[in-house]
């Protein structure tokens, strides 16, 4: 199980990073969303993996770690707010300039050099 979770985090991070490095706003937003998933799962996994023991108090002896869950829960909601703001900014810039490039058009030539 650990391999699956770790590799899922890794693959989501890699795809997210690749998309973030594209030069148009929409893939960058998708990339940020993927990175959000990866980071959330990563933080959640810092409580270590437990199967079948949710942190609802019962007679049980073992529970999964509730603190990372609480932190990730708010992180998920906040990431919605953040995504919405970024999308709005991207949309505003596209509607304003009819161009959805991430970089300054003037610096494109320089970007090619690096």
């Amino acid at each position: 199980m650990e391999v699956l979770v770790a590799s899922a985090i890794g693959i989501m991070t890699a795809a997210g990073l690749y998309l973030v490095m594209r030069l148009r706003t929409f893939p960058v937003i998708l990339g940020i969303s993927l990175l959000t998933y990866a980071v959330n799962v990563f933080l959640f996994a810092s409580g270590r993996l437990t199967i079948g023991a949710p942190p609802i108090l019962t007679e049980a002896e073992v529970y999964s770690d509730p603190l990372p869950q609480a932190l990730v829960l708010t992180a998920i909601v906040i990431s919605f707010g953040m995504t919405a703001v970024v999308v709005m900014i991207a949309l505003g810039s596209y509607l304003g300039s009819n161009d959805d490039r991430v970089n300054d058009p003037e610096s494109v030539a320089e970007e090619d050099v690096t």
Partner: protein
Amino acid sequence: MSLFLIVALPFLGALLPGLMNSAGRQAVGGVTFTVTLAAFIGLMTNLPAILAGEVVQTGFDWFPQLGLNVTLMLDGLGFFFATLILGIGLLIIVYGRHYLAREDNMGEFFTYLLLFQGAMVGIVLSDNILLLLIFWELTSLSSFLLIGYWKHLEAGRQGARMALTVTGMGGLAMIGGMLLLGNIVGSYDLSVILQNREAIQADPMYVPALLLILTGCFTKSAQFPFHFWLPHAMAAPTPVSAYLHSATMVKAGIFLMARMWPVLSGTPEWFYIVTTAGLITMVLGAVIALFKHDLKALLAFSTVSHLGLITMLLGTGTAFGAMVAVFHILNHATFKAALFMSAGIVDHETKTRDIRILGGLRHLMPITFVIATLGALSMAGIPLLNGFLSKEMMLKEMEKTYLFGPEWLVPALVTFGSLMSAAYCFRLIGHTFLGKKRDPESYPAKPHDPGPGLWLPPAILIVLVVGIGVAPFLVEPFVKLVTAAVLGGVAEVPDYHIAIWHGVNVPLYLSITAIVGGLIVLALFKPLSALWEATPRPEAKTIFDDIVAAVVMWARWAIHPLHNGAFTRYAMIATVVIVAAGYHAWTTGTVADATRAVQPVGWVEVAGWAMLVAATVGLAAMHHNRLLALILIGIVGLMVSIGFVFLSAPDLAMTQITVEVVTIILLLLALNFLPNTTPEESPWYMRARDMVIAGVGGLATMALAYHYLLRDAVSSPISEFHLANSYKGGGGTNVVNVILVDFRGFDTFGEIIVLGIAALLIYALTETLLSGPVRARLLNRVPDKPLSGTQHPMMMVVLTRVMMPVVLMVGFYIFLRGHNEPGGGFIAGLVVSIGVVMQYMASGFAWAEDRQRFPYHGVIGAGVLIAGLTGIGSWFFGKPFLTSDFTYVRIPPFQEFELATAALFDVGVFLAVVGAVMLSLESFSRLARRAHVKDNEQPMDVDPSMHEDFLEAETTKEGV
């Protein structure tokens, strides 16, 4: 009056002029005057204590851990400076009220002036050197605002920037010096520091501390080589020049040298540095001043010269030197402020300050002529005026000072400085006011004496100039009192009587030489001036500008490759740096053995993993088709939530899946306006490079995650506390929810506020877009996709209406059970939002908006307010913010249930989430409404109940 009030009054009063701007210029000036007068009277109530030789102290602890306490102290020196600041401040306010033109914003000016005044009073009354530093920086900032007050003048902006740069950098050095000093003594209280002369001077850090503190003082008081900023600060309105740059701010450095005199002076380092800097400044300033044609520039350099003189006197380290310095501070403040104000009058009435154009004003402006002449003669050191007395005493002190070179060098240089000083004073009188009577039309404006509002303030100062000059015995006790405060018990106050006639002695000869020489120089002014113009010399402003330009270029060179404005590059650089740092940590640290057993894997888990991976990889590969990309990211989100369920996190799963729904709706709304496809922009080698970086980043994350998943935490996690106390202390069995609303309720409170701000930001951005040029573009936009024939299909409308109560009930249920079972305010809020959004989707924006009772901003606000009030409620029970309480009640016929204040807090969370989600989505759809979506009156496109056949059938039925 309490010292606190004296310091606080100008700061509090600073609010008034700005607010009262519409009440008229008279009211603004009046309120500023009243505030200053109140502080001045408050200061005077402490006079008896000061005269009795007491030190008034007050204070309270602010940050005792840092040694930063608000302690104030008023002794002779502080009283002297505070009197100068507030007293001259009163005159300047009257003058400024009449000086500023109708189009100047007077409220703004007086607000800045009062801020400056408060900061200045703060400096001279501080007992704590850290507090003093705060006020010190405040004077730099407020003087920046005052110098640049005429924002339309380029010279004003540049002068302000230069002053801030120089004094600000000096301030930084000063902070370092003060911290060193505090470290040596072990206290930041001045009253303690001043008792530790031996300890400080014996410490190896004495010299660095001295150098740093002197840098601060020299920059502030415009001492060589930092003297160049002061003349450029003259671009400020004249009241500012008269106040800051003659009487107060530039004296702050002098004040600090005097304040620190008992502990810092008397060493060879102090003597050589301070005396030399003062001597050079004095001579250099006097020479430059003579050849300036701008009245204010002449006065500025003469100020530089006189500040040098005072610095030099403090540098000698003798008690007599300190006494002369104190006396000259007083005299200089009176005659120089008066001179600046008369220069301002000349400028105000003739519209020029160029001495070459002026001349003969004696006949046209007799009052101004008398004021300026008496001031200038005092500055030149003519008997019966106060400047003469302190200049004689200065010559007496310097005549026996030996610095370096031949023995006669210092007296000769000082006499030369006085000679040049006399020369520029005579030039000021001769070339501006004397000379034959000219036609009033020959000036840029017709000159005449101004009203008393402008001439009375300098005239009051001139009365002092003459009064002290004629009857010095009146101020002698006061000067000695202040001197005693400067000396701080290190040396005895010298037994010297300030008098006009001390018999024929060396200082008198030197004085006569200076005055006669000054007249000769003035007679030879034309050839000398030509010679001066022909001499090449370094221009401070050019050098300063070159340095600034070089620094900017260097900074750009260093930053631009990293920070070019494209997000892509930041992401790339950040990834590479983080991976490199992680790799370094990995290879240099010790790696412990695995302690946890690997959990078993079944086929279902592998299948779920495979779907997640396929969707993720597919997304990266096929992101050019944006709609497809959206579907794929939906799959990723779905699989992540299923993963949460499987890994014992039901709350997370519910949150993730609901957020997923609203996010996808949001992205769809945005995609409506964005291009459908992403063009291939980067060439193959750039994509290859990105793939390598992304791959390495992914591998690193995976390795890190895998590593810690196999190991237990180094110390036991704090969650054990949460698990143990969740029911006992928080009254709930769902530990995640109890953490959110109770243990870490303050975090959650902050988070809903952030969420609310994000939603409001989106709303504000939409408003901005819709009020700008984008609006026209939207209105003219032709949709690139064909519109659906049935935008509001009947089936969907009916279904959403039926589902609405069900959704609300589910939301209510999830909310209520949240404390004990998976659920809670966050999830319930998201569920309810989805229910409402469905109505928008089914029947359109206009229809839904008509039925909306409360604006979503209000819902967010109500949520934050309820959460906040719940937290405040615990104050009434003497508990800290957000302490929760709960009890169990039983209302028949229901079962026993729990009532918790945390549930009320959760209502706040719920409302904030609903409001934020709805406001964001609503803002996006408002854009669409502007574009191509027609408003609809009816809930659905085709309503069978409105169909002819149906209506007919109905009528027939009624007929039967």
